[in-house]
């Protein structure tokens, strides 16, 4: 039951983060938000008995992707990114 409540909460946070990612003023924030979405996803994966996936998501989906994003953002120096 706790797992379910936790899952619901995490799910809601994910969805709101996703919406935040689309509405954020700065692209950086959007990228960060999407990184958080991935991160939370990896927690949910743990709840769903998928530790392998959780690790991968955390390392790649959340970590690396965000890093690559920031690299690119750094290369594009603009006020609104």
């Amino acid at each position, binding site marked *: 039951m706790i797992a379910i409540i936790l899952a619901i909460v995490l799910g809601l946070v994910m969805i709101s983060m996703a919406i935040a990612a*689309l509405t954020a003023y700065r692209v950086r924030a*959007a990228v960060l938000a*999407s990184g958080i979405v991935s991160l939370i996803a990896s927690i949910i994966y743990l709840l769903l008995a998928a530790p392998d*996936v959780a690790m991968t998501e955390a390392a790649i989906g959340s970590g690396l992707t965000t890093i690559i994003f920031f690299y690119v953002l750094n290369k594009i120096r603009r006020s609104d990114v």
Partner: protein
Amino acid sequence: MEYLTLQNIGLVTGFMLMLIGLYGALTQKNILRIIVAFTIFDAGLNLVIVALSYIKGRVAPIIDQTTGVTNLSEKFVDPIPQALVLTSIVIGVGVTGVMLTFALRMFKTRHSLDINDFKQTKW
């Protein structure tokens, strides 16, 4: 209440993320945001897949002391979707990386990140 299972929560959340991601991909003007939206779509998709592998009350498909070596098919969750998601995540990062490089180059050619500025070819 009977629908309020972990799997269904995962599925619904995943679907929502997919839709949000798609909406973003179809409405955002900034190329980088479009890519962000696609990653959200991917995340939702992966969540759906993993959620499908889940069976209530079972454990991760890894043999250890707690599971023993017998009757594993009644103890484990489905390993296949998990394997698929592994692949899917890696593919996702590959595609995202490629798209980002494209975005970088597109920005270099036109000094813009607006998707509407890249309509050199049409009709």
